[in-house]
């Protein structure tokens, strides 16, 4: 089976590749600024729960906002293959 064929089957099963960018405290706790990963998470909320089990994130979801493809979205938005996500810690501009 070619890798293209595998990717197709995985997508059909709900797996997708998403690109995540980390900032501020999350970047320091993740120890990197971005990553691409395969996930079965259907929403940003599911994805954050998944990540929070693997990494020492101290911020609870209710303290974060989430941006999908450069726009703020709800935590229950459906994720698609290739999406770009940013979990936004409490802001402090100005």
């Amino acid at each position, binding site marked *: 089976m070619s890798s293209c064929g595998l990717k197709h089957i995985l997508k059909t099963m709900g797996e997708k590749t998403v690109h995540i*960018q980390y*900032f*501020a*405290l999350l*970047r320091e*706790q993740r120890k990197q600024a971005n990553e691409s990963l395969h996930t079965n998470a259907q929403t940003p909320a599911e994805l954050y729960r998944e990540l929070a089990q693997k990494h020492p994130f*101290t*911020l*609870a979801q209710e*303290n974060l*906002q989430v*941006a999908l493809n*450069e*726009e*703020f979205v709800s935590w229950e938005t459906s994720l698609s293959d290739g999406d770009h996500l*940013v979990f*936004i*810690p*409490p*802001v*402090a*501009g*100005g």
Partner: protein
Amino acid sequence: MFRLSNSPLEINNLHASLQSETAGGFVCFEGRVRTLNEGKTVTSLEYESYGPLAEKEGLRVIQEAKEKFPIIAASCVHRIGHLQIGDIAIWVGVISQHRGPSFEACRYIIDEIKSRLPIWKKEHYQDGDSGWINCEKPNSSSK
């Protein structure tokens, strides 16, 4: 106009860009890095931003101010990077025919920008400690 800047803000250029023969009032706000915050002595700080979204949201705030208040023009530049005490972190300027709307729009812009834009601030303290503002206090498990 809204933008992020990695270099010191050029206040004179910003001021000069807000000119109009029909403007009777100009109000500006400068946010500066101060040495004390909540009892700790700050030595310097860093601003980090999620640039593409910060710029979109900044422009939206300026646009909202123009819709809510009868102003002629408004500009805002937010500094990103490593800043020292006294450096200007943000500059907001507004011109309008009468003074009231300039005051109100300037206050609206700075309030919204502080609360909505994906920009983060890390303070470095004299005692060697440092911290991301608003990120480490709510659940103090991280410190």
